[in-house]
């Protein structure tokens, strides 16, 4: 089954990358590209494995290798997990391709090894079938992500990494308390049994604590404060993967915990469908979603630094996804997974486009980037298209994501009334607000007068970006390819 095979391939790839890095010292070409190519091969193989095993995963949840029958389900392979794993691997592959040209010299084996293990851990988080597996891979993900953030050991990235590690550590701790409480009340650590914890006060408390713990990684306001620092201080390949995959998977972890509560969400519904009005859990999630999208947007509006604009925009997107999750309906689930895809490929793309020349915080000021897209027209086209796509304009995939998020809210509104109608209005108005800063990016970077040295990146350098943009375009023009056949 794909979760185990993919993880084995990725972890083995990571180890092998280190070995190649140590052993292949003689030839400069091997030194520079060896480890990266090994990891690239591992990610590509994983994609093939995933794709070839896809049809078998589509029938719903598949339980694998029960450790201790009534308590544990190691992995679940259904359409949501398969598609999210696909998202992560595609972004991972693009980031590896980008890194191969980004790092000009020296051994980068540890970087690729960390990247490969991070991808493997994420696949573990995505496909985990019980809370313990989720927690273990979650920790693996956090640790490797910390390694990537601090890679290169620049002072600023060390500080950002420390912040990330402390906050994610507290989040993990809270999550662990939550898991213990859920296990105590539900008598099982299976994700599908979470609904049983809702029956008691202690179980509900456990669920809430668990959500808060996982919410740190998803950057739910006010647990988000690590994210802008990490996005602005770490190296671009690291931010590309963290912004594209890790933050999205943080939301997906919330998704996994809430999925069992959704009627028709793959497991038996735990919330009585005849009850009108939002439950308290929904109300809390909706309030957090509102605050998250608003704070993200408002903070981005006056920012002058591209990296910080992008990081606050990620927080906004978390808000949209949280809003879709709060609906606890199937459309909301699809909306979340689809947004992780659409947002992930664009956001990691944005960081790749910044380029090494402008990697430092000072150089990623919008003013320093002024006219970069005028000097290099391919780059300008990419910047303009990605910005438009992030504004939710057709013909890009984000457009349909937003349609789905609003749809889930309006469907929920018919079930539970005004709260979700209000949230739908908040989402569409926030989308308008985000035009403010994305258009500013286009205005400065693409339309601004070129200054300083021309960005000399060629088609080969920008190939990963162009491919990801192509995927976004394909999703927008042919949405049925993903929504009809895959999700």
């Amino acid at each position: 089954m794909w979760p185990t095979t993919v993880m084995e391939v990725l972890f083995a790839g990571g180890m092998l990358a280190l070995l190649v890095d140590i052993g292949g010292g003689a030839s400069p070409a091997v030194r520079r590209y060896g480890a990266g190519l090994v990891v690239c091969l591992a990610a590509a193989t994983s994609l093939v494995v995933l794709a070839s095993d896809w049809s078998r995963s589509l029938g719903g949840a598949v339980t694998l290798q029960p450790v201790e029958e009534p308590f544990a389900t190691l992995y679940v392979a259904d359409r949501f997990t398969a598609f999210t794993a696909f998202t992560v691997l595609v972004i991972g592959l693009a980031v590896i391709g980008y890194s191969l040209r980004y790092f000009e010299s020296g051994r980068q084996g540890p970087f690729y090894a960390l990247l490969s293990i991070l991808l493997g851990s994420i696949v573990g988080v995505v496909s985990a079938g019980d809370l313990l597996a989720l927690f273990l891979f979650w920790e693996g993900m956090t640790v490797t992500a910390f390694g990537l953030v601090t890679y290169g050991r620049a002072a600023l990235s060390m500080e950002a990494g420390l912040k990330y590690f402390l906050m994610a550590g507290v989040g993990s701790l809270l999550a662990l308390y939550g898991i213990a409480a859920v296990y105590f009340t539900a008598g099982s650590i299976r994700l599908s049994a979470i609904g049983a914890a809702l029956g008691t006060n202690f179980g509900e408390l456990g669920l809430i604590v668990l959500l808060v713990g996982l919410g740190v990684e998803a950057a739910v306001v006010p647990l988000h404060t690590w994210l802008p620092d990490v996005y602005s201080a770490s190296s671009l390949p690291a931010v590309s993967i963290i912004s594209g995959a890790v933050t999205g998977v943080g939301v997906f972890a919330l998704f996994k915990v809430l999925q069992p509560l959704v009627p028709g969400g793959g497991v038996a519904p735990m919330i009585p469908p005849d009850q009108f009005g939002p439950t308290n859990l929904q109300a809390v999630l909706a309030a957090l979603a509102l605050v998250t999208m608003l704070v993200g947007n408002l903070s981005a509006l006056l920012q002058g630094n591209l990296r910080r604009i992008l990081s606050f925009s990620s927080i906004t997107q978390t808000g949209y996804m949280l809003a879709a999750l709060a609906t606890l309906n199937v459309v909301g689930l699809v909306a979340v997974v689809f947004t992780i895809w659409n947002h992930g490929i664009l956001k990691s793309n944005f960081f790749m486009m910044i380029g090494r020349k402008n990697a430092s915080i000072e150089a990623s000021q919008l003013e320093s980037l002024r006219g970069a897209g005028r000097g290099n027209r391919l780059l300008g086209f990419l910047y303009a298209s990605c910005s438009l796509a992030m504004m939710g304009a057709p013909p890009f995939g984000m457009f349909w994501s937003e349609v789905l998020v609003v749809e889930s809210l309006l469907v929920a509104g018919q079930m539970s009334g005004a709260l979700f109608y209000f949230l739908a209005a908040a989402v569409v108005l926030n989308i308008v607000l985000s035009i403010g800063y994305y258009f500013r990016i286009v205005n400065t970077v693409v339309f601004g007068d070129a200054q300083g040295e021309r960005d000399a990146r060629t088609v080969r350098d920008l190939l990963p970006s162009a491919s990801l943009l192509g995927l976004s375009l394909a999703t927008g023009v042919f949405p049925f390819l993903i929504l009809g056949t895959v999700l």
Partner: protein
Amino acid sequence: MIYWAWLSWAIPLLGVPFVPVVSRISGRLRGWFAVAASGAGMAAALYGAATFARGGTEGLTLWFPSLSVTLQVEVDQLSVLVSAFVSFVSFLVVVYSLGYMKDEPGQTRYYSLILLFVGSMMGLVMSGNLIQFYFFWELVGVCSALLIAFWTDRPAARKAGMKAFVVTRLGDSSLLIAVIFIAAVFGTTSFDAILGPGGIQTLGAGTIFALGLLMFIGAMGKSAQVPLHVWLPDAMEGPTTVSALIHAATMVNAGVYLMLRMYPVITLPQLAGSLTTVILGVGLLSALVGGACAMAADDIKRVLAYSTISQLGLMFAAIGLGSLAAGAYQMISQGLFKALAFLAAGSVITALGTREIDRMGGLARSLKYTYVGFLVSMLAMSGLPPLVGFWSKDAILAFASGAGAPQTALLLAAFALTALYSFRALLRVFHGKPSAEGSPPESPPAMLVPIVVLVLSVLAAWVILQSQPLLSSTDWIPGAQTLAESLLVLAAFAGVAYYAFLQNYQRTVSGIRSSGVLRTGQGLLHEGLGFDRAYAALYSGLLKPMSAAASRLQTGLIEFNMGLVLLVSAALFALFALGVL
């Protein structure tokens, strides 16, 4: 399969990726390729209009599964007529571009976006369901923003592009809610289903009103109605060809078209006319505000932009008064004479290199073709029979007379303003003392041919239009009273314009300068009645402080960050202890 209905919008859209390819072969070929692509689309649409016998919907493939959206075309009296008109005007503008944009840099971008713009508008017109409609609706908005900002080295153009995008998106978000609500309730957004007996009319009156209002707000953004009109006057920062497309064929007509499509809903009996009253009110207000501001504008394209707001207001007034045919007719006639006005204005701007009316004058002799074009356009806009603008205006007036005296009075006031600003523009630009040295050269044939074709259309299109299935059931012969009223207003205010703006221009100017009230009024109109200032105040008074407050959360201090995590945990524990959770 109804091939023409698919080809009319697919050909321009499929042409878009080929523009960069063709431009590699030859720069000259690029423009002709765009002409060919839009021409082929037009041929398909005209064929459809000529052979139209009965309506129908045709689906091709499942497009967006979650809302079970099929890619489909809707062929009926409305879409056939509007698609033929849109493609015709767009084609002429693309031909005109061959001359107008000849020496401009960035032509690959220009022609790609123009084809995308035209194809999206055609796709919007032919859409068979609301989701597809909304997809193209947004695409039209994106193209217009990028084309308005085409001259990217001008900060004003970039700002105008962004403004257009933000303001129209504001309206769009309201439309999006309505569209998805309908999809969520009915499981389909196909026009056949939602406008039919089992569709929207089965909902409660309050819900229908809310839906209609949300859609109308979307239409207000796209069709530049007060107070969402502020983007249109600034949009003239783009090339004149783009203005012609936006004002005549593609962008602003989308909102009117939406209301025409939804006409069965907004006139449902259970609404008791509440929605049409709102539409009528906004339409009349926009007609007056647009007309008044056009009086004070001193940029020739700005005059035309405000006149579009005013003319669009008349279309909504027609719909609000309960006449779909008059609204559609007004949309088409406005499209024809406004395209003509912009193409003629573009010719003037090319000849003189300025847009300021005060630096023009006496051009009638040197720019003969252009003069005839502008003259015919202004006469049609002010409603001179039997030009194309006359029939729809009189029909609207007849409906207003049926509705009551206040409506009639407001409409006549809008007509009076139209005559005033049209003749002011005409007389200041083409008559009086020449301000330019020598005689500026007339434009090349590529620019004059579309002008001539449009002149002929404005003169004679009514013959064809009134035999179209959608329009033929209405009686277009005006009654004696409305004819007398409108002609009287036209003659009187054309005379006033002649007296004030040609014969005694210096006295008019000094008269306004010396009177405090008139001077204040002119200043107020000149800056568009302060709508822009109000929006700016809203931004700096509300959004900016909120944004500053939000960024204060990001202190960068670890203690503070950890404190927030603890605070959230404590708050949730407290909620739990209180029994809320």
